[in-house]
């Protein structure tokens, strides 16, 4: 197979992943919508059991509906999980074939960052989901991957259609180390932010309930389908605890490389500045989680804002800021 054919194959694999993740998004969303509201269902069953005089029609029928919808929800979630695995495999294959086609580590421009990032999020989601059920996060994550791959194909593709050699500044094994760590961290931060956003939804619903406000609207609808606050907080913290050291390492590796390539280890290049901002935001999250008055809602907000800086660093700084990290392969 020639390099060009390999490169084309890689693109087809990315396209295939885009189709699969679209389906996964649909199934995860359907599963989420049809998730049985556990608390309401339980109370309904109690009513049915406690009031057999209703003619035996309304109660059992309602219960049956719920049971079947639960089964349907589980089925759809399972299909979503299978599709997520398929999408993960396709993306891994896309990254590998891209590397083979170009004879280098496949992290040289925005298209490649975006695909690698989608790959990292997919692996993270699928592996984590096999350990603890996070299918409720499925549609958010699939939606993110969908947008990310869409951007890769629509916005960043122009220079990705053929074999793309690297400029001399990027010819270093630190590319593989630094950028891989950075993109994997981005994937992890995505998962963590998903958990924190879910936390904020449930927290809002709970505080509304405590204040006796009407339990209507999206927040309450979604909160009924999400795990408990404690579980969400624990999940978010666990992912952050893995990713924060990885991000720290990515920044250090970047500094070592900067010393090789640009004659200094730190020079407040926009990308360096934003990496620092991200680090500080997540450091604040880690501390907030253990500080009275900050744990819970405020810590979750820090996680979400931290993720906003991550996205800003990737999409905005790479494309619009003047700096040394100007290899995005977009614009000119």
């Amino acid at each position, binding site marked *: 197979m020639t390099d060009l054919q390999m490169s084309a194959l890689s693109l087809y694999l990315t396209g295939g992943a885009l189709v699969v993740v679209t389906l996964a998004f649909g199934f995860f969303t359907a599963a989420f919508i049809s998730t049985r509201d556990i608390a309401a269902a339980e109370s309904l069953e109690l009513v049915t059991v406690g009031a057999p005089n209703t003619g035996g029609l309304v109660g059992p029928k309602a219960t049956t509906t719920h049971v079947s919808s639960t089964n349907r929800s589980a089925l759809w979630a399972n299909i979503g999980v299978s599709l997520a695995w398929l999408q993960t495999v396709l993306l891994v294959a896309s990254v590998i074939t891209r590397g083979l086609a170009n004879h280098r580590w496949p992290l040289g421009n925005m298209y490649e960052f975006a695909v690698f990032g989608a790959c990292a999020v997919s692996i993270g989601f699928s592996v984590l989901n096999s350990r603890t059920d996070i299918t409720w996060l499925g549609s958010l994550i699939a939606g993110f991957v969908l947008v990310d791959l869409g951007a890769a194909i629509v916005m960043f593709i122009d220079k990705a259609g053929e074999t793309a050699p690297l400029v001399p500044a990027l*010819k270093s094994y*630190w590319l593989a180390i630094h950028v891989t760590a950075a993109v994997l961290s981005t994937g992890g931060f995505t998962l963590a932010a998903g958990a924190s956003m879910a936390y904020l939804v449930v927290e809002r619903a709970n505080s509304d309930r405590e204040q006796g406000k009407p339990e209507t609207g999206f927040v309450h609808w979604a909160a009924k389908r999400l795990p408990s606050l404690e579980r969400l907080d624990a999940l978010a913290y666990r992912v952050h*605890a893995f990713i924060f050291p990885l991000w720290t390492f990515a920044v250090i590796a970047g500094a070592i490389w900067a010393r090789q390539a640009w004659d200094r280890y730190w020079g407040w290049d926009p990308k360096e500045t934003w990496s620092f901002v991200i680090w500080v935001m997540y450091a604040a999250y*880690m*501390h907030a*989680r253990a500080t009275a008055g*900050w744990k819970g809602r405020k810590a979750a907000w820090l996680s979400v804002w931290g993720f906003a800086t991550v996205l800003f660093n990737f999409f905005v700084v790479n494309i619009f800021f003047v700096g040394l990290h100007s290899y995005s392969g977009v614009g000119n």
Partner: protein
Amino acid sequence: MVTFMNTVTVWLRWSWRTLTSMRTALLLLMLLAIAAVPGSIFPQRGTDDIRVQRYIANHGTYATVLDRLGFFHVYASPWFAAIYLLLLVSLVGCVVPRAMEHGKAMKAQPPLAPKNLERLPAHRRIDAVVTAPIEAAIAHLRSKRFRVRVAEDKTWVSAEKGYLRETGNLVFHLALVLLVITIAVGKTTGAQGKMVLVEGQGFTNQLAQYDDFRSGVFFDRSSMVPFTLKLTKFDVAFQRTGSERGAPAKFDAHVNVQDSFGGPVRSQIIRVNHPLGAGGSQVFLTSHGYALHFTVRDSAGQTVWSDSAVFAPEGANMLSRGVVKAPDAKPQLGFQGIFAPSGMVDPTKGLFSSFPDADAPLLFMGAFTGDLGLDQGIPQNVFTLDASKMKRLGIQPLRVGDKWTLPDKEGSITFDGVYRWASFVVSTDRSEVWVLSSALLAVVGLLLSLFIPRRRVFLRIADEGVLLGGLHKSGADTLTTDLDSLSASLTVGSRERPDTTPDMTSDTQNLSDVPAPPRAEELS
């Protein structure tokens, strides 16, 4: 007076406590993140002085105010320094007492066992217990490297493990302080010099030979090793096919280095990503361009210039601009040129370059005669010509080898050839290895503080059996494993089943940041 002193003491104590509190640290962290942002939005002095000047020129008063406030030099501004210095003081003020606390805890025995183990988050009962359970438990826990304490009446055992968690946490924070200190040492004792070499030119590591030299206040100039470096050839290649056509593919600066006078000469290649070590410094390749060689003769036929002029490249295809000043000519001669390495002439755009490599060098040269304005001793930009007191003689396209006889018998200029120049930075920073070590130490500390579970295991003799209980500050799974293996070692016959398993919800507390471990009294 006494009350006043008291007030001051109270106030100072309050300030210190507030400064070293976690809330303040959190606010400072967020402030630091926000304060760093303007430096990525506005051009910064020291990184891009030209853009700063242009920005100020284009934005008037608004930019002048920003300049006064330090927005063009954010990371050296007093307010940025104030934030990180306060943060460091807050950090030290928080970490040092904790370190002493932890030092004591490392020497102290585990706490007393709580009276009621069944109130602990993880607990279980063993009825079919081995004989001498206390001794068996001690042996088991010691083999698992727990620190063990036994009641004098041998009715309970208390054991603790995972002290490395807090150690790692302290190491992480102290390594950050060390990182800032080593960076500061490097900045104040280091130096950076820049210079441009045309192919064939050499340079000695001395202050006077740099175009630009910046050093820290404690930099020792006498420590500069006088190595020499000669650029023999600058080898460049660009992508010739594909969508990346014109992108750089290779920059190799071939140099001859002599580490000391009369010493052996070594041939080296300096590339991007491959700096050269010489005389305790590192030599980096930073940029490159074209240097054009000219011979200029004045009206009397005297050769008044025979040298290379450095041309500054603009844009991807390296259209370059440069000047030649011949003050010794009578009258003085000045030339202003636009050089296209792959030159083409468009009827509307004029001269442009179609490719960055020197495929078809073409130069448009403008000639001037008169007063160059050099005699007043005012420093001039080497890339611009002040033609205000000069007469324009004309403009002429030139290719390599062409000689242009100037109008009015003012002399001639010959375009002898195209060479390349490379610019280098010589950087001296002896603290680098310590900066890196501090950063790596911080990572090690961070990993320990996040992944070493700290937990306590207790055993109490209860009627006809024993009670086990456990507490964890993180890592419920590890505690379960600990209790499983302990109870297995104490049970006669079949392994019992845990009656409670800590769930994930009890893992939410990251106690690495809570000052003191919960004491046994609080639990009983």
